[in-house]
């Protein structure tokens, strides 16, 4: 019994560890969208969906391809490598479909951009230290 309990604790702690690594999707507090499905999020970050339900153009904020948080986000939500995502965006933007994402080197710059742009969306590694102009979008 003790043996099984040990493994149960190990599995639970591993699950909690994985959850804590999940990125937090953020937008401007003036954005009326509160929740998105994982499929919606994928379509936004691959340039397949370019406007919000409010019909306003989405401004995607992302990190440089070598960023650790971007690698994790791409793996968790897009099922693609950052390199592949970059190539898809080159195609999307050069075809005239949408403007390429704004690329940032760190989370503070990205937060600042989203705080200043009502229609922006991005992600950070944790929901801590979010300013009042930012909110977390729940992923269903």
């Amino acid at each position, binding site marked *: 019994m003790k043996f099984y309990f040990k493994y149960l604790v190990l599995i639970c702690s591993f699950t909690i560890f994985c959850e804590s690594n999940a990125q937090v999707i953020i937008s401007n507090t003036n954005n009326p969208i509160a929740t998105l499905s994982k*499929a919606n999020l994928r379509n936004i970050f691959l340039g397949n969906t370019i406007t919000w339900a409010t019909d306003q153009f989405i401004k995607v904020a992302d990190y440089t391809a070598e960023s650790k948080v971007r690698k994790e986000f791409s793996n968790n939500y897009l099922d693609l490598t950052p390199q592949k995502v970059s190539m898809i965006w*080159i195609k999307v933007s050069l075809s005239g479909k949408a*403007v390429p994402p704004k690329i940032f080197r760190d989370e503070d710059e990205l937060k600042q951009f989203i705080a200043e742009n009502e229609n922006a969306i991005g992600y950070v590694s944790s929901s801590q230290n979010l300013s009042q102009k930012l909110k977390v979008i729940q992923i269903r």
Partner: protein
Amino acid sequence: MIKNMHRQIFAFLIILLVLSHIVFVSSSSAQEKRFEIYGYSQIDFSASNSSGSISGFNQRRINLIGEFFLDQKIRVLSDIEFKGGTDITPNDPNSVGTVKVSRAWMEYSVSSELKIRAGKMITPFGLYNLIHDASASYFAVDPPLLYSDIKLSPSLQPNRLFAKYYTGVEFLGTLDLDKEGSQLEYSVGIGNGRGLSITGDDLNNNRSVSARIMYRPSLLRGFQIGSSFYTDRNYDGIGGVKNDLEYAYGIDLQYEDSEMQIQAEGLASSYKIINGDRITTGISYIQIAYTFFDVLTPFVNYSIVLADLSNNNSMFSRFNLGLNYAISPNLFLKTEIQFHQSEEEFSENSFNVFKISAAIAF
């Protein structure tokens, strides 16, 4: 009196300074939020063993795209292309290269399901036409044969089977079909047909019609299937018949994940030749690419052209073998060998073309 005048000039300068500061700061901050500029460039080296060919470098193009957001509903896009190391001097016969407006359109977004564009646009046809010149967006040096000028008989000039650009109005949008992420994209355009000038006044009262529909299912991530259509009265005519009513139908498939990309397309084009017969030309290709270590992508492309579907002897094929190396997410080094059959150029011998290219998106 003079003292009073000095005071007035000083006051005027202060007001001017304050006003110019307000105007400058507000306009520059507004532009930062509303104007985007980006583009792409490509430089090639090619060599061939065909008789009379010359090897060398080619500054293929540099395109500057400017996008201006008038508000949340309206955007304007311009795409200026400098091709072949542009160096143009008026009345100078030694001028080289071209500079042209590849795209110039304005878009009004009614909703995500309906957008209306007007201006000079790229014809929405197949997997590549919208990105045909943007080499950084695909693995090969050149887009597939289907998007090139092809010589279909010894007496005909090389020609494309549908218009690369058109000027007119386009309706386009994306429909979300379910909550799992299935989407349907469409575009329908009406414009001037091919002629001496596609951007100015039309040469006749006939219009071109282009349409594309593309389905992206949620059940198979990375897969998409599309179909395209184009018709116009071609002023020059693919078969040499003036103002010929021509049609092109296309179907395309693509599967893409982190490592693999598979593309296949087929096109049938119908046009008249000088003796009055109507010919149908068919072109198809399959391209398979696989990415190793996230940056190194070998690919193969096999294209078949049947210049006249009713005549099996009119068939030729081309095989391309290449390698794409992503130096950075936006900079690509490509190399490719194209194996041309003699029938493709109606020449006596088959020949090969070697190309190496650097492409960047910025």
